[in-house]
């Protein structure tokens, strides 16, 4: 097992290197001159040239990449020219907000998706199954800003149960902090449970046809044990994959949801950087998000081995 993990970790290195190169190229190829963006349209050509020389912008692109990569390896992703803030600090400041949102959204999505998937798989073809499968499909076609507005209207405006905006740090007011995450997390969960439910439902229907499920019934096991132990575990590989992709995506922050609910997460940092043409922040955030995505997928790969021992022993 240790060798298996070690080898998978080794594969990560070239992937991360490619990610850094792509990130750098995309940021460099964006239209707009960084020196011009910093100094504004009143700047003289001499001042622009001087700033370019100071920032190394007049060097060939490969030298600039190596220079930047060397900094990244030392933990220096550069600094925002607007606020002077270190990119790494800016990301680390906002990361806990995005991660808290991501965890709450995934937990809610799985809490809605898994029980409904099991119910529909057991009753496959029945009216209950058709209703929830149809409902999931309808839900999938609702854009998240609409769900957000509906939730705000219901829970914040009509019933006044939860705040629509107003994030407070966990250290100051834990309950208030959690309350401020409920509606945004629910908005994200609404976009996620239909996909989770549909893949788990179809995998579960296939698993329930297996001989080992007939065997489990013939052993006289309780229905709950057959479903939750014998059927759910071998059916959950696709579920784990999709959850992994969702988590990877949400590490980069939920752009729309963080903006609507005014949460100071990575998504808002990214949106702000785009509006301000703050390429350094943009580049740093994209690198960070891409690396996070790669690492989450690595963890998902490891989870396959935990779920299915044949994968673990086959590869080790």
């Amino acid at each position, binding site marked *: 097992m240790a060798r298996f993990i070690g080898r998978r970790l080794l594969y990560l290195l070239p992937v991360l290197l490619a990610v850094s190169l792509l990130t750098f190229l995309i940021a460099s190829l964006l239209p707009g001159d960084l020196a011009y963006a910093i100094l504004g349209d009143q700047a003289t050509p001499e001042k622009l040239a001087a700033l370019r020389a100071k920032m190394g912008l007049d060097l060939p692109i490969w030298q600039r990449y190596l220079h930047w990569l060397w900094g990244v390896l030392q933990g220096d992703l550069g600094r925002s020219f607007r606020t002077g803030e270190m990119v790494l600090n800016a990301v680390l400041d906002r990361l806990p907000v995005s991660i808290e949102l991501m965890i709450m959204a995934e937990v809610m999505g799985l809490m809605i998706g898994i029980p409904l998937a099991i119910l529909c798989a057991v009753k496959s073809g029945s009216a209950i199954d058709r209703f929830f499968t149809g409902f999931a499909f309808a839900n999938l076609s609702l854009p998240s800003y609409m769900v957000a507005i509906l939730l705000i209207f219901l829970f914040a405006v009509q019933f006044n149960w939860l705040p629509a905006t107003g994030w407070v740090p966990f250290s100051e007011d834990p309950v208030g902090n959690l309350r401020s995450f409920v509606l945004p997390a629910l908005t994200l969960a609404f976009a996620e449970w239909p996909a989770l439910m549909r893949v788990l439902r179809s995998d579960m229907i296939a698993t329930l046809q297996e001989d080992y499920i007939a065997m489990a019934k*013939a052993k006289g096991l309780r*229905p709950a044990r057959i479903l939750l132990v014998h059927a759910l575990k071998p059916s959950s590989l696709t579920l784990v994959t999709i959850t992994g992709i969702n988590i990877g995506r949400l590490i980069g922050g939920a752009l729309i949801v963080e903006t609507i609910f005014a949460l100071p997460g990575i998504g808002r940092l990214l949106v702000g950087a785009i509006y301000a043409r703050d390429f350094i922040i943009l580049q740093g955030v994209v690198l960070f998000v891409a690396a996070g995505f790669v690492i989450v997928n690595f963890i998902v790969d490891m989870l396959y081995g935990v779920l299915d*021992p044949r994968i673990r022993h086959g590869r080790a």
Partner: protein
Amino acid sequence: MTSQPLLSVEGVSVELPTPRGRLLAVDQVDLSLAPGRTLGIVGESGCGKTMLSRAILQLLPKRAALKGRVMFDGQDMVRLSPEALRRLRGPSLAVVFQDPMTSLNPVLTIGTQLIETLQAHLGMDTAAATRRAAELLAAVGIPAPEQRLRQYPHQLSGGMRQRVAIAIALSCEPKLLIADEPTTALDVTVQAQILDLLAREQQRRHMAMILITHDLGVVAGRADEVAVMYAGRVVERAPTPSLFAGMRMPYTQALLAAIPKLDSPPHTALPAIAGRPPDQTRPLPGCSFAPRCRHADDQCRAAKPPLADSGPAGSQYACWHPLQPAPMPEA
């Protein structure tokens, strides 16, 4: 054959919906089995023997329609509640499936799959159940049972997996074991070992057994009674010695002739049964075997022969033109 039957199957039919229409998988089958006895059910693929076993176990596919009664230990299995059935499966009624590659759960250890059965019915704590599980593995001839408990099915050979499946089936001391082609998926070299293991454990536990197979040779020395199935019906039924002494149904004879003989000279053509089993979504008015039978005439094609009693005690056959009982040169 004198004691009260443990199992009696009375007029059981099973219909399955298919895209081509309703398929009559099992057609009016009557069987009975006394405690401690062995019944062999023989027939080729698709004759309904597996569906019959699933009907007895009440493990039919959701859409299957079952008619008739399955009396087990004085209760009609068809009318039992799911919870009453669950309590019966394991301690009273157990099964060994055909393919041990698919009948064990690939993501749970051997130990988990054995221990959960013991805990579900015998109320053992984990330590006691683990000890018992190791004893059971040792009893079915698995070396180093404590280590095997921690392994997954894919780490064992096919024969070993079938031994594990048998250990699970025997774990709660069932009164009836249904073995559905228990050796078909295995290497020939382990087939005899598994059959001997089943026979030994059956005698030790005084357990009744239904041995389902497509191979008359398998039931020859092991079953007290044999039922031959064709196209969903029992076409011949007799105590094993009288069946082999004089089979009356041409289909049974053709099945026996299709077994390769060791003393035949090399390159002897195997007398296979010509034609194919009938389409069970389009039942024939007459005898289902008529299209493939050398003795068939107009009567066979027009009317279904009933399963009638014949000379020797307990023998029945369904044929208009039965073979004359003649001592077989060898069985």
